[in-house]
């Protein structure tokens, strides 16, 4: 028989960025909040101080901060007629292992999505006609929230995280140095942009000559010390370069630990249950609400945590799997396009170019996880698609990071021996002469790209694994091929002696090759309950005291990293809960 804990006002499932931001809002409003996280407690000084952090083998190669496939994986297939196979080793799922989730080991690129990304369907029809939005494969839908509605919450996230950058558009006025294509923001970034390192200099010069507008990527690696609105102090980034897959010993990479826990953990109306894995949300007999969640604790016992409000704030695969296991809403059926849970899986469509130079001194060990330059001239709908065979686009960026010697040994010009004395000679030279152009491309949902429960494979608790069915849409393949050609032009302008273009979308999608780790969808938001699992406030259409928060809610993916948008959505939902929902529990919008 399951044990039962005292009832909470709110239970939060997963204490990463979404969970921590929501817990901060809700506890400040006076609610009693219990968070449940699958991982153990971890923090800067006790787990990833500078004495253990700069260690490529442990954190990059062995990925010790990531949730292992043994505990957390999924099966995958490209088509409905295939038997899905489990991803057995680390692949595109880069979930956090401990408290803080992926927010603890992320690189720190802290974007806002473009206004277009929230209204892809409407704006595509407006500009190019309905046949471009309905090509028989794509399944486009608007988010039910606009950029302008989300702006105050982006702003709040950026203040909490102390994001470093240069504004490109303040209240409609285009500012020099920033991204001229970004949606209007109300004010400048909290901290100035990071330094411009050598690879960025070469990229900036070349793209300016080509008529583009390069800018420094907004970073959660802080250029200066910052005290955030919660009173939490952060330090300045030291450009050590150990960010992606690492903790941060400097308190300079924004994370739940560095930005929120020092305030949140001191509140008497908050606690976190660690090493508890939530397996389902429990439905109430009324059929319109839920009563709490059930988790498996460290000792393998089932425990019930009752709560008046349930917030699923886990990684998108976990949010989706818990929703499917809980049988709260209709699972998506790819044959009829009916049902809502599991639909609109999207990824990121990646192409680009590897570049080598002959006499550069890149010093690639100096860097930061989010440090790089980008042009947005080929992102979203920033360019005319009338004569192109796709919608969407990619941010074309170069990076000043990743100078880590085990992984970098594979980045040698085509035809270079991979071993032997000639390998050593080539590596000794090209370690200082390698760069990348990475096209972080949008990903549009398709009718057959979806998630359900696997019929054959289970996790260690006997719960079915999530099954992913997905392949790149032809639209996205065309986009990736087009932006790859743009990257090659830039590489030539940069003066590279060797250029190797790449395009992950030229092959079928796979979970094994890490083109990106930005998986989204499964519990999509929207204004229409027929095509979305949660409403524009991320409230379940079928249980009004259940909120499902995170990248699981994105109906499509943009040519940007997702975390900024995840943060903004989480804060917006938490505000709606304590400002509106608790006074009058019920649907926040009519279905």
């Amino acid at each position: 028989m399951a044990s039962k804990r005292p009832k909470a006002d709110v239970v939060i499932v997963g204490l990463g960025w979404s969970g921590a931001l929501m817990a901060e809002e809700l506890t400040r409003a006076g609610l009693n909040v219990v968070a449940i996280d699958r991982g153990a407690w971890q923090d800067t000084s006790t787990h990833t101080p500078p004495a253990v952090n700069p260690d490529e083998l442990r954190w990059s190669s062995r990925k010790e901060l990531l949730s292992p496939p043994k505990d957390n994986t999924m099966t995958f297939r490209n088509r409905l007629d295939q038997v899905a196979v489990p991803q057995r080793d680390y692949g595109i799922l880069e979930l956090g292992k401990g408290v803080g989730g992926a927010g603890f080991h992320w690189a720190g690129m802290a974007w806002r999505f473009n206004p277009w990304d929230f209204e892809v369907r409407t704006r595509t029809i407006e500009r190019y006609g309905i046949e471009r939005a309905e090509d028989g494969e794509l399944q486009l839908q608007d988010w039910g929230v606009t950029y302008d509605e989300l702006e105050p919450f982006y702003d709040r996230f950026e203040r909490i995280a102390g994001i470093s950058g240069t504004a490109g558009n303040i209240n409609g006025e285009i500012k020099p140095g920033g991204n001229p294509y970004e949606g209007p923001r109300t004010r400048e970034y909290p901290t100035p942009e990071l330094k411009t390192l050598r690879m960025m200099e070469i990229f900036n010069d070349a793209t300016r000559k080509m008529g583009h507008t390069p800018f420094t990527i907004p970073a959660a690696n802080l250029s200066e010390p910052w005290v955030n609105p919660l009173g939490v102090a952060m330090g300045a980034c030291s450009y050590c370069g150990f960010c992606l897959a690492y903790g941060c010993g400097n308190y300079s990479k924004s994370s739940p630990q560095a930005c929120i826990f020092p305030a949140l953990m001191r509140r008497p109306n908050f606690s976190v249950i660690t090493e508890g894995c939530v397996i389902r949300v429990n439905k109430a007999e009324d059929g319109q609400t839920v009563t709490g969640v059930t988790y498996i604790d460290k000792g393998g016992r089932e425990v019930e945590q009752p709560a008046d409000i349930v917030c699923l704030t886990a990684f998108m695969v976990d949010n989706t799997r818990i929703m499917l296991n809980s049988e709260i809403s209709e699972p998506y059926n790819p044959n009829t396009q009916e049902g809502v849970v599991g639909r609109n899986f999207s990824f990121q469509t990646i192409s680009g170019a590897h570049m080598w130079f002959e006499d550069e001194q890149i010093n690639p060990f100096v860097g930061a996880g989010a440090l790089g330059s980008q042009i947005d001239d080929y992102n979203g709908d920033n360019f005319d698609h009338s004569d192109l065979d796709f919608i969407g686009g990619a941010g074309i960026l170069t990076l000043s990071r990743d100078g880590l010697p085990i992984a970098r040994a594979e980045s040698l010009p085509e035809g270079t021996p991979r071993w032997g004395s000639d390998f050593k000679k080539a590596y000794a030279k090209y370690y200082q002469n390698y760069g990348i152009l990475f096209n972080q491309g949008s990903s549009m949902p398709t009718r057959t790209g979806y998630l359900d429960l696997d019929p054959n494979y289970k996790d260690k608790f006997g719960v079915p694994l999530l099954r992913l069915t997905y392949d790149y849409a032809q639209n996205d393949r065309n986009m990736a091929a087009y932006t790859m050609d743009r990257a090659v032009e830039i590489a030539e302008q940069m003066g590279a002696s060797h250029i190797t273009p790449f395009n992950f979308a030229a092959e079928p999608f796979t979970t094994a090759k890490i083109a990106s780790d930005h998986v989204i969808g499964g519990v999509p938001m929207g204004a229409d309950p027929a095509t979305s699992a949660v409403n524009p406030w991320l409230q379940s259409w079928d249980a009004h005291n259940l909120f499902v928060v995170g990248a699981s809610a994105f109906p499509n993916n943009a040519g940007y990293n997702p975390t900024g948008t995840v943060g903004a959505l989480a804060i917006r939902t938490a505000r709606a809960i304590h400002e509106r929902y608790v006074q009058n529990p019920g649907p926040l919008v009519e279905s």
Partner: protein
Amino acid sequence: MKMNRREALRSLGALTASVTVAPYLGANEVKGFPQGTVLDEEFVPTPSHTGGLQVLNNDAHRRTLAAVFDRFIPADELGPSATQAGCIEFLDAQLAGPWGEGATMYRDTPLQPHAEELTQLPQFIATPRERYETGLEALNKWVSDNEDAEFADLAPERQDEILTGMEQGDIDLGQGVHTKAFFEMMLLSVREGYFSDPIYGGNRDMAGWKMIGFPGARYDYRLYADRTGEKLDLIPVSLIPQD
């Protein structure tokens, strides 16, 4: 205001099923900011074992592996060979630990016959330790079937031909061994040994880092970040003292 919210929630809470169960207080509930300042035991790096080899005890296997490693990274004017830099000791320690045991892998059966075709990368249920054992056994058998000497005693040119054959898929070792994947695993292991922190047994004297100019476990480049395009000649540092 706060009371109103709580009251409203209480009315919602009346819907909770009223099954009587034992109250439970989780042992892992964290309340208040944890006050401990000591480094968590699991996060302290585990230095390589110094009391002799733990896994690579089969002399015939180890002799072949050492020869392979030294063709991958030979001694030359750019630095020591893989074995001189400690790559065998490094790999032995890795095979003896969680990585060797496949501790993070999802290993439930069945392994689908079309798994590799779908994922586009080889998939295994076998652990790295098992794959090294079967791979080296198969390589030695292939050499004894096809050559007049053991692998380690062949001319370097012939060793390179065999390795190239494995790398490019022209040689199949048989014995159920995925030859290309086994080659890639050995190549990755030697790179890990040659370029990881010396605390793990390889990269002796930080020779791998010196070869490419990687400054190692440094944690602050603010003094150098503005000197873009300059050769910095930074002396590498390791997680363990070197003097």
